[in-house]
């Protein structure tokens, strides 16, 4: 099967529903494995930081969550574009399934960030550039989720949320830049291109955790998309056969 026919078949909800189950299982196990390895590497094998002691270890959850919060927004924007332009129902379902996950990753990033901030900066919250743009991102997620669920007709909700997500996707870099311009207390990014300032013994668990979070998200989004599809296709015969065999 070529890639093109695969993509075309993926657009059909029953086909997606059928193949997403084994894929989801696989992603779940890979994600679990990677996260366990990453946690072991980060919490036991990595040496304490010479400045931050053991406090830096929260970054093994914080950095992947913060990264996922932006990645999921990108997924929503791309899915929204596909849903608006090519009217692909699967894309709408993926966007609707992703938004609460992205909001959750953002919330985790905010909470772990402020827990880390208490011992390091002496306060749970500072009006620092990245914290602030992450908070605005969280509000954007809430807007997309609420808008999507506000309409009686799910199709209207999908389209409205898609427009908001696309404008939001243009807005997120602007917000980031504006807040950065406003002021910054946060330490600079530790990733600069391909070179990194983190010691290899601390870095590899972080990369493993990031990969683990990606698979974890992939599993969750497949699972949630399955139920979103069932909700959207409730009056179709195949969906009724799935629900009441």
């Amino acid at each position: 099967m070529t890639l093109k026919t695969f993509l075309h078949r993926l657009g059909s909800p029953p086909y997606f529903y059928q193949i997403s189950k084994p894929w989801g299982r696989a992603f779940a196990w890979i994600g679990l494995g990677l996260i366990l390895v990453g946690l072991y590497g980060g919490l036991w094998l990595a040496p304490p930081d010479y400045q931050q002691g053991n406090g830096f270890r929260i970054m093994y959850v914080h950095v992947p969550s913060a990264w996922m919060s932006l990645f999921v927004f990108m997924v929503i924007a791309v899915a929204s574009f596909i849903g608006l332009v090519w009217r692909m129902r699967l894309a709408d379902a993926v966007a609707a399934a992703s938004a609460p996950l992205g909001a959750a990753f953002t919330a985790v990033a905010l909470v772990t960030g402020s827990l880390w901030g208490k011992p390091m900066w002496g306060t749970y919250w500072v009006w620092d550039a990245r914290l602030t743009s992450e908070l605005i991102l969280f509000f954007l997620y809430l807007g997309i989720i609420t808008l999507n669920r506000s309409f009686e007709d799910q199709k209207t909700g999908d389209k409205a949320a898609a427009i908001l997500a696309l404008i939001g996707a243009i807005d997120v870099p602007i917000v980031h830049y504006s807040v950065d311009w406003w002021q910054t207390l946060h330490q600079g990014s530790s990733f600069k291109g391909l070179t990194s300032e983190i010691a290899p013994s601390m870095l590899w668990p972080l990369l493993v955790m990031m990969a683990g979070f990606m698979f974890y998200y992939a599993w969750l989004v497949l699972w949630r998309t399955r139920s979103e599809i069932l909700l959207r296709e409730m009056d179709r015969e195949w969906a009724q056969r799935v629900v009441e065999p």
Partner: protein
Amino acid sequence: MNPWLFFFRTELGVSWRERRRVMLPLVFFAIVAFLFPLTMNPKAGLLARMAPGIIWVDAMLAIFLGLESLFRHDHEEGILEQWVLSPTSLELRVLFKVASFWTVTSLPLLLMSPLLVLWLSFPVQELGILLVGLFLGTVTLCFLGALGAALTLTLRQSSMLIAVLFLPIATPILIFGAHSAILAARDLDPRPALYLLATLFFLTVGIVPKAISAALRISYET
């Protein structure tokens, strides 16, 4: 007369017939600004430092107040449906509609801001910079707010939802806008902030009418 100018003038006339819509944001703008000196120690130094932020947040809230009814009447009376069906450009119509909304709700705020400058002891000689910033910012805010209004057009009690959609997207404008005034008040060069504000102005006027039109069309598609 150019049909678009005629449309713009008609919209202004309709708003003028409902003068309440012009007066209310203005009164709100004044009352909110007046609450701040009451709830803090009105020592001139502190107020002067807070003034740019108060004026900008106040202007944004005053615009927000009018958003829910922006497309509401046209929607309920079926005028909007005719716009969507009409072969003339919906984007241009939205552009002029929002321009008239700005003229009715925000232009009075700009004219009123000298009063706030006096109340909040913002340096009077920097009034010009404040007004340029407010002009660029309020136009941008009107377009972003209109998008929120268009997305929630068919919903009841949409104003809470508009707040959740509109306020996070509007933060860069508030940051650049308030900081242009802060820079001016500190005798620093406000142009960097104003240029950034102008960039957002053109970006918004260029892109957002398209998004508003798409949002309005949704309501009639399904």
